[in-house]
């Protein structure tokens, strides 16, 4: 490498003002209201009377320079040379002309990018790196994401759900994908096997690996005369936290790493407070490339919610209203013991009342 001539400028994030459509600069902070002329299109009106349309489209999320350049082409052609991404990896083009909206829709659809994800639709799934890049994944989140989005495609391009539906999927229990109305997350079903060779090779700091375990199940030990670690299997809760600290704590397994489904996460403060999602199905096979069993469960849940939810009722709010018993009935899923919490705050989730449905 040649001698470095550039002195780093710790510039932080670039200034957003240079990245905005002129109508957005002009009306910055002065928007008055919005409408949704059709699925995938927003219309924001400013106090000045100015209008900006947004066209939202689904993307690969694991993109390429070619894909992004095509978006840039479209932005240049229709949107004044500006575009943005949503927190859910959808791309958005802003324009003040309805003709541009129509042009964008046509061209995006021709390129295979569905228009939608607005209002009470199922938006793009938030997902994580998986086998493509992460060092601890037990599945490929991108593949699960693609497989699910293929199934819910029609719900992305329409607005027929009771309220917004947010999906996520994560390739280990850490859950970089976050809380969602429906989340598909890896679940480990046995303790890590310890690769003593690897530990002997010194790839891990043993004390910090021990410290990482939430239930103090890891203990220092000696194997073949050299320091290593052991796991007290009765204590271990199969969380995989140790694997993040130390690759020698092998938690992943082609058959014993499964998928679990969680529902009712909510992040907004609208009406009810934000809520954690709850476990409703576990032990689904990790079945690439299409994970059909996962897709089936997601479909069942969406169908029941679509049928039963009231306007503005998020997934979790709908379930709270009808009760968990009916949720399981209507989705055909089976409640079992493992869905009863037995971790630190378990008691808070017990039914501490005589309230009971028969």
């Amino acid at each position, binding site marked *: 490498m040649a001698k470095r001539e550039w002195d780093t400028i710790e510039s932080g994030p670039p200034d957003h003002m240079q990245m905005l459509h002129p109508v957005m600069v002009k009306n910055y902070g002065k928007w008055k209201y919005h409408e949704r002329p059709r699925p995938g299109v927003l219309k924001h009106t400013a106090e000045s009377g100015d209008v900006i349309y947004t066209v939202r489209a689904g993307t690969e999320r694991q993109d390429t320079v070619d894909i992004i350049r095509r978006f840039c082409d479209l932005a240049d052609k229709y949107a004044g040379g500006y575009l943005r991404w949503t927190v859910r990896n959808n791309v958005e083009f802003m324009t003040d002309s309805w003709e541009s909206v129509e042009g964008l829709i046509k061209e995006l659809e021709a390129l295979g990018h569905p228009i939608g994800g607005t209002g009470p639709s199922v938006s793009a799934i938030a997902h994580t790196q998986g086998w493509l890049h992460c060092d601890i994944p037990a599945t490929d989140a991108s593949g699960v994401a693609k497989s699910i989005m293929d199934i819910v495609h029609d719900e992305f391009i329409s607005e027929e759900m009771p309220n917004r539906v947010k999906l996520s999927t994560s390739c280990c229990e850490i859950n970089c994908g976050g809380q969602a109305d429906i989340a598909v997350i890896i679940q480990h079903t046995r303790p890590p096997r310890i690769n003593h060779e690897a530990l002997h090779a010194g790839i891990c700091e043993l004390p910090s690996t021990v410290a990482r375990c939430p239930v103090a199940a890891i203990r220092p030990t000696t194997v073949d005369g050299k320091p290593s670690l052991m796991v007290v299997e009765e204590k271990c809760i199969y969380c995989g936290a140790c694997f993040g600290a130390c690759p020698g704590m092998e938690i992943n397994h082609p058959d014993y790493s499964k998928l679990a489904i969680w529902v009712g996460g909510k992040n907004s403060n609208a009406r009810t407070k934000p809520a954690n999602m709850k476990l409703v199905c576990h032990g689904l096979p990790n079945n690439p490339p299409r994970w059909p069993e996962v897709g089936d469960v997601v479909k069942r849940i969406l169908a029941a919610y679509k049928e039963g939810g009231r306007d503005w009722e998020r997934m979790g709010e709908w379930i709270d209203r009808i*009760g968990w018993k009916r949720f399981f009935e209507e989705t055909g899923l089976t409640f079992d013991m493992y869905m009863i919490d037995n971790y630190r705050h378990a008691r808070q989730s017990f039914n501490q009342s005589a309230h009971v449905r028969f």
Partner: protein
Amino acid sequence: MADGNEFQLNPTSKLDELEKGPWPSFIKGFKETFRRTGNTMIRGALDQLNYSYETKMGYWKGGVVGVHGYGAGIISRYSMISDLFPEAKEFHTVRIQPAPGLHYSTDKLRELLDLWEKYGSGLVNMHGQSGNLQMIGISQDNVQEFFDEINKKGWDLGGAGACVRTSASCVGPARCEMACYDNLKVHHDLLTYFSDLVHRPQLPYKIKMKFSGCPNDCTNAIQRSDFAYIGTWRDDIKVDTTELANYFESKGLDYIVNNVVTRCPTNAITLAGNTIEINNKECVRCMHCINVLPKALSPGDDRGISILVGGKGHLKVGNMLGAMMVPFIKADTEEDMEKLQDMMDEFVDYWAENALDHERIGEFIERIGMHQFLEDMGMEATLDMVSHPRDNPYFKAGHDHDPLKNIQQAAG
């Protein structure tokens, strides 16, 4: 001690303040009985109590006092300042189990009072928070005789210490239209069945059972007992349409909407013209609508008990409310009662064998985890047990679980 007159009280300037005011005064009562009986133990107790009011400290300490063959039932109290107040040097309490529901006939009660006046102080606590008839103030010498006498009349001691405790029942079917099971009988039979464990502390810690006829839980069972027996029903709420119409007429539509329709916790009730409709599938048996419209609505006919486990007081973990463990069990026939007893035996035995010293069953379940508990007890997990499924991913289901079995069965 006051000179001369043995019926003369010593000055109790602090306590005297408690003779004022409209509510019945226990100090007045104590003085009255002392003045009549001259039982100096009362005077001693008043003196010591007044001293406590002055110094803001208590002066009783425990010890071991009991009756032949029993390990529990007497709370022993010795004065720590008997040099100052020798008259209440010993001041033990005898805990007596009343009839379920705290029902008495005057003849049975008078027998007891007479014996108490003979052997004890004449002070009576009706009742202790657990439901005992507490006879306060007796010296060790008199305890056995007093017990033998009352035992002859059909009374038995209650619990104290690490044993099954005296239970409480609401008035139940004796007078309440809400009662969904015969809680008085279940109380009576279960406590009799557990007599050995009531009288002989041999458990890790106390066990309390409370019996409420319905979810109004007038015994505070869920909060105050390890095993709360709450009456409930499985079928539909019974509706007397004539009385319902009467309510609409007498109370008015607004009242019904504001106090019934909008107050159902699950919106199971809808207004339908000039009447209401109850979606019994959504009803969680909270009792509210029945409480507001008792003439028109009543619990269904398929009645039984919900059992909640693990309620207890503040100690160590903060207040614990009992949690639903057995959503529905029948208690009509002798066979039902046997099943109930067997189930209770299993609960108690399992806890007794595995709990730490001074660990109530609620704390025990919290420590070992609900999964272990259900598995060891051979109980099936049901959604009734939780407000919602778990929200953290730390569970160990094992890899042989097949989540699709049921779905496929349904499809196939």
